[in-house]
């Protein structure tokens, strides 16, 4: 039975529970004897902790314990980095709880365990914390001045350098150069479900069970085992339904130690559910970057080189994946373009703000804004059509694999795998109706200026080194698929059922369940990041099916008394050389683990175009039409793919227009609620379209799939900023900073008008 579930718009199996309120998120679990944890967080951005006195809180009825750094002999454990764990970063890593110094508003100081969360919150106010304030560092100028130090080593963690060719030589005699300064603002991968951890210590069995695991449970188990002094096998990380990931959920945070520690300390189950204010100040922030970047071109628009200095605000500590976004700002400045000479460094500096981590499209959203803005300025300078400028510089399919700038000191080498970048650009022009709409550019119609823009992007996926999937045949002839990667809402249960049904040649219903995310399922797992689950896990699933068949053949060969390769498995039957057959379900209990090993990345690519209007009286930008064209190599489920594109695009537009974590000069977060931190709503961006293609399957995996979770967000900022510049071309408005909030756009228009009058 040959199936074609891959590529079909199969409705999701996850939906049946979510739509009926039957999902089970960590906050929905309430075992007998549960204690509620509430965390006291620093209200001071930078200071020395003189004392923490919890005696009054401990005397309150219903308060069972208060945990501080004093309860951790040898000092609080340090959270190691997961990605780019360079020795240079060690001094900047975060302790799980503040001992002698606090470095951001929101840093944990004490954990209260109480009979209810409300009692715990009451008790927070009874804890006397004495902190000697130190002058805070909240911006790059202060960080680099040197008189206020977060750490003994200073405020600079590291400088990465991205190099290809010889930029100095390329710039030396270049006929045209332009240098620009751009900024993206701090915002983050806010998930609708705040984080949560529930831990149970089974003293009899010596097992620690940690619920609420997400994204990278196997890695987090390694960290926790080392910190808490248990073998990995004594810890079960259990994934429940996860209300959104976006890169931020599921990394190892201080609470991922504190709650299991508290459960052992109290000898009772302990649950901590983050509230939204905590989430805004404790979950990884992202995206705060600046670029001084210079381009060199020929007069006919061939890019000769790109160089510059960029800066990434890391916040107060180097967290598990804190270096990724910064590194990417240096490496991906060139995007999908042929730039033979690159020399870009990025300085990772520390401030008294919430530490950063990855947010969907890390470093790429930022660089696409920098690069695509710069390109429109350059095209205008050179008098070349901005589409033609891009065309002349896109990497051609014949040049694949195309090497990207090499990053040092991590010696990270990477190359684009495949793609027809011109064709997605062409398709995007057709989709948006570029030729017909060109005449609207800069026109004032009914009080609003019209603008048009297009940008090209690449999206990395398929991070290695490995993924593991197990396939098991059940007694009722159904299959269970168990995977090492995780679900964060992207629909892996459905997508993996599709891949499994095709590979096993059985109806979709025969894939009884797809289990994921918990450490008990497979021998090893990596997780859901870098748009890798389908590429890595899907390929591992194909291997698991091969190995499952081999295991059945081996067993059948014994029963038939023949050679293994004389056995055929197919159509629910196992057939021997003499025509004897056994039903496949005779082999119930057979299971096999498969793997996929990979050191290369897949590169999804495409182009986005926008048609916007700008109201000069209010500064409000409206998107009239937006086309996102993306080639993903191989489409597994067009529904979930479109969901990824449109969903991430709206997040990108949130970053372009709305979302901003604002701090004052004392390091106080001013946007501590959803009244202040603005997210896109249903009425903001109704006119978006997604087109996905399968022009160039990835050559590096058997599915031909490429990552598809991040493309929507990457191009958004650059495209809409260029559309605003295009609309306001007569004023000479050139946005160099996000977000394009109405006040900022209005100010740019007014500044341009004032300058024109003077």
């Amino acid at each position, binding site marked *: 039975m040959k199936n074609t579930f891959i590529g079909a718009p199969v*409705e*999701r199996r*996850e*939906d*049946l*529970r*979510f*739509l*009926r*309120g*039957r*999902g*089970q*998120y960590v*906050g*929905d679990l*309430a075992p007998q004897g549960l204690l509620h944890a509430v965390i006291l967080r620093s209200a001071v951005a930078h200071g020395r902790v003189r004392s923490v006195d919890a005696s009054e809180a401990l005397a309150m009825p219903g308060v069972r314990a208060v945990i501080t750094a004093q309860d951790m002999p040898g000092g609080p454990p340090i959270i190691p980095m997961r990605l780019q764990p360079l020795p240079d970063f060690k001094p900047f890593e975060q302790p799980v709880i503040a001992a002698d110094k606090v470095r951001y508003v929101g840093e944990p100081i004490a954990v209260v365990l109480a009979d209810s969360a*409300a009692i715990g919150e009451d008790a927070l106010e009874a804890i006397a914390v004495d902190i000697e304030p130190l002058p805070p560092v909240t911006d790059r100028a202060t960080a680099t001045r040197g008189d206020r130090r977060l750490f003994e080593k200073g405020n600079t963690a590291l400088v990465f350098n991205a190099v290809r060719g010889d930029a100095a030589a390329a710039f030396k005699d270049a006929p045209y150069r332009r240098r620009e300064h751009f900024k993206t603002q701090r915002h983050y991968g*806010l*998930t*609708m*479900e*705040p984080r949560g951890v529930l831990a149970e210590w089974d003293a009899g069995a010596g097992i620690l069970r940690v619920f609420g695991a997400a994204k990278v449970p196997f890695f987090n188990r390694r960290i926790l085992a080392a910190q808490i002094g248990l073998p990995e096998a004594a810890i079960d990380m259990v994934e429940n*339904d*996860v*209300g*959104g*990931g*976006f890169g931020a959920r599921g990394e190892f945070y201080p609470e991922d130690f504190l709650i299991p520690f508290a459960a052992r300390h109290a000898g009772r189950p302990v649950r901590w559910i983050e*509230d*939204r204010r905590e989430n805004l100040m404790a979950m990884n922030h992202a995206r705060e970057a600046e670029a001084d970047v210079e381009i060199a071109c020929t007069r006919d628009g061939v890019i000769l080189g790109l160089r510059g200095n960029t800066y990434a605000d890391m916040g107060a500590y180097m967290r598990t994946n804190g270096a990724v976004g910064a590194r990417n700002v240096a490496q991906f400045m060139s995007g999908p373009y042929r730039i033979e000479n690159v020399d870009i460094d990025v300085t990772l500096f520390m401030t008294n703000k919430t530490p950063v981590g990855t947010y969907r499209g890390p470093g790429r959203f930022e660089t696409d804004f920098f690069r695509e803005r710069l390109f429109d300025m350059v095209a205008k300078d050179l008098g070349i059509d901005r589409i033609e400028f891009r065309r002349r510089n896109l990497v051609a399919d014949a040049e694949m694999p195309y090497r990207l700038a090499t990053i040092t000191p991590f010696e990270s080498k990477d190359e684009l795998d495949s793609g027809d970048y011109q064709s997605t650009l062409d398709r995007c022009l057709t989709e948006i109706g570029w030729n017909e709409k060109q005449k609207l550019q800069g026109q004032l119609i009914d009080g609003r200026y019209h603008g048009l823009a297009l940008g090209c992007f690449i999206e990395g996926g398929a991070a290695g080194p490995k993924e593991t999937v197990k396939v098991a045949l059940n007694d009722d002839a159904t299959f269970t698929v168990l995977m090492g990667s995780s679900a*964060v*809402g*992207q*629909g892996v249960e459905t997508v993996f059922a599709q891949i499994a049904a095709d590979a096993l040649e059985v109806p979709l219903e025969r894939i009884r369940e797809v289990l994921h995310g918990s450490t008990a399922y497979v021998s090893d797992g990596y997780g859901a990041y870098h748009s890798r689950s389908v590429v890595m896990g899907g390929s591992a699933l194909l291997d698991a099916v091969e190995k499952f068949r081999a295991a059945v053949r081996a067993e059948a060969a014994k029963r038939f008394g023949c050679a293994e390769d004389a056995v055929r498995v197919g159509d629910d039957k196992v057939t021997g050389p003499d025509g004897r057959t056994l039903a496949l379900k005779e082999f119930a209990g057979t299971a096999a683990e498969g793997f996929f090993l990979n050191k290369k990345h897949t590169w999804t690519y495409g182009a986005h175009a926008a048609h916007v209007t700008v109201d000069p009286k209010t500064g409000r930008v409206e998107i009239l039409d937006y086309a996102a064209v993306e080639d993903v190599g191989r489409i597994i489920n067009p*529904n*979930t793919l*479109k*969901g990824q594109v*449109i*969903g*991430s*695009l*709206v*997040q990108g537009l949130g970053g372009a227009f709305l979302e901003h974590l604002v701090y004052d000069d004392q390091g106080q977060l001013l946007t501590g*609620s*959803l*009244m202040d931190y603005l*997210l*896109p*709503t*249903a*009425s*903001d*961006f*109704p006119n*978006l379209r997604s087109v996905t293609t399968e022009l160039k399957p990835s050559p590096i995996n058997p599915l031909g799939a490429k990552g598809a979770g991040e493309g929507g967000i990457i191009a958004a900022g650059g495209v809409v900023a260029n559309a605003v510049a295009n609309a306001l071309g007569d004023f000479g408005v050139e946005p160099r900073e996000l977000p394009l909030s109405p006040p900022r756009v209005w100010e740019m228009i007014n500044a341009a008008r004032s300058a024109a009058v003077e």
Partner: protein
Amino acid sequence: MPTRFEVNGKAVEVNVEPRMTLADCLREVLRLTGTHLGCEHGVCGACTVLVDGEAVRACLMLAVQAEGRQVTTVEGLSNDDDLTPLQKSFRKHHALQCGFCTPGMITTAHALLSEEPDCDADRVRDVLSGNICRCTGYIPIVEAVLDARAAYRKPAGDRG
């Protein structure tokens, strides 16, 4: 305080602190965990339930205020046999991903369509703009709600 009200058609009696929200009462006391808490300050809409048929944020209402009222949660808008037409439409249009905002979307959409089964796309967007979704970009949710309108229209003979 002892408080009596109806949840999903069943009479309940709870003894709660006056400060307990209706959302916490539903989740922690009655163990109806389909109602989700995304912000606890009335912005995100994940905790939306129906009180006497009207969409209400359960995080902004105290449990004691439910005295004598009829409360309906997402569980009450569901059945074991099959998805309802509204739920089917959400599934068909891929109007959910992580599922966390979904109960609030379903209750809000149900309240809207029960009152205004002929509402247009702008009205749907306007009403749903009080519910935050971080995964879908909203477009498929709006399509799902529009597509479910027919199921809420009374047969022609019943009108008026």
